[in-house]
């Protein structure tokens, strides 16, 4: 059974952008793709725990601000060194201009 948590307005996330979202003592990164799709992953880079919301979104990649490692934010897959461990990704939806995530 999904447990949808409201993140906020879609328009508050820039296209090809990312925001930080904290919930239940955890931190997440919520993305808006160039095609206005929304995605959510864990917020911290698996290499040195830097928040990815400070990073750069390019197409479907999020680049960590510290060492420029990269992940595919649709799946959480690590794409470029130094991170090797994938990010956990979460179901995300955009309805009526609001973004929600299901973090279990």
């Amino acid at each position, binding site marked *: 059974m999904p447990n949808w948590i409201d993140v906020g307005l879609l328009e508050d996330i820039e296209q090809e952008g990312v925001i930080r979202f904290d919930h239940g003592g*955890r931190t997440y990164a919520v993305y808006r793709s160039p095609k206005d799709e929304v995605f959510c992953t864990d917020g911290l880079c698996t290499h040195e725990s830097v928040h990815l919301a400070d990073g750069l979104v390019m197409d479907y990649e999020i680049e960590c601000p*510290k060492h420029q490692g990269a992940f595919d934010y649709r799946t959480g897959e*690590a794409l470029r060194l130094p991170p*090797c461990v994938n990010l956990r990704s979460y179901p995300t939806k955009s309805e009526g201009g609001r973004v929600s995530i299901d973090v279990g």
Partner: protein
Amino acid sequence: MDDLAYGTRNKRGDWSPNEPAGTAPLFVFPPQPLKLLKWLPHYFLPYNLLFALSAVAWWYWVLPPVEVMKFLAWGWILKLFFVNCIAVFLFFGAFELRLYVQRAQGNRFKYNGKWPSEQRSKAFFFERQNIDNIMRAFGTGLPIWTAIEVAILHAFANGYVPWLTFASNPWYLFALALVVPIIHETHFFILHRTIHLGPLYKWVHSVHHNSVNPSPWSSLSMHPVEQLGYLGVAFWHLIIPSNPIIALYQLHFAGFGAIPGHVGFDKVEVTGSTNVDSHAYIHYLHHRYFEVNYGDGLIPFDKWFGTFHDGSREGEARMQARYQKRKERVNAKSTNTPAAAK
């Protein structure tokens, strides 16, 4: 000088050379004598000769008589510390001033298109790379450097270790001086590979890797444990029968010699038409990709252990293949729990 005649610049503004980085033609089989002869001047010039001469200069003009070094007294130790600080400030500062403050050659031959002074990061003290790097170099690096120097000189002065003289052992000491870079490369590779492992990376070496876009001040910006291990290469001369001047050369080779790998430019322009190769690309690629090039290329350790990246597409493909395998391995083991908010 047109740097695009020597390399390419990507959309980020990062420049990379057309020629892949190579390792020295030492320790290759079959031997390549002609290539070795052509390369040989680079073994001495410009850096190695400079560091060797600096050791001689320190011995004659900075250090007190041997009788004084038998005792640990603040006078000569503080003098040595201040001279070391001034020398590092002038030597590193000259590169910093010309390349990063005056930007005398703009971004020509600059590996990373960005300038450290324009990027703030919470990884650094006061969010400034230069301030952080300078604090670490002078706050812990130079005291550790001087402490190692004092310990070695004190040991020689008191006869705790054999002191071979140039008069009685000229050929042996000449040969030992020649292998100083080889001792350095071996020590550096083993230390560097070790501190990339698990907790040692996290607690020690990550400090140095905060400088993704290294500049001259990054050279000695390390955790104190790494500074001790790195500069401690000179302690080998307490084990190998040696002479204090050669031990000083070993220390200067590590200390002053940290700069070529961190200068951030492939070539340093001397005049409009002449330049000096920095040989920094191998170590720049290490700062960029982390898990390649643990050595500096004098001995092909990285080729032997499969971690060499020469900057070419083939090198990139080899790195990616290793990366995919490693990802599969670590993600199979990873529990991947959600990240806690800080």
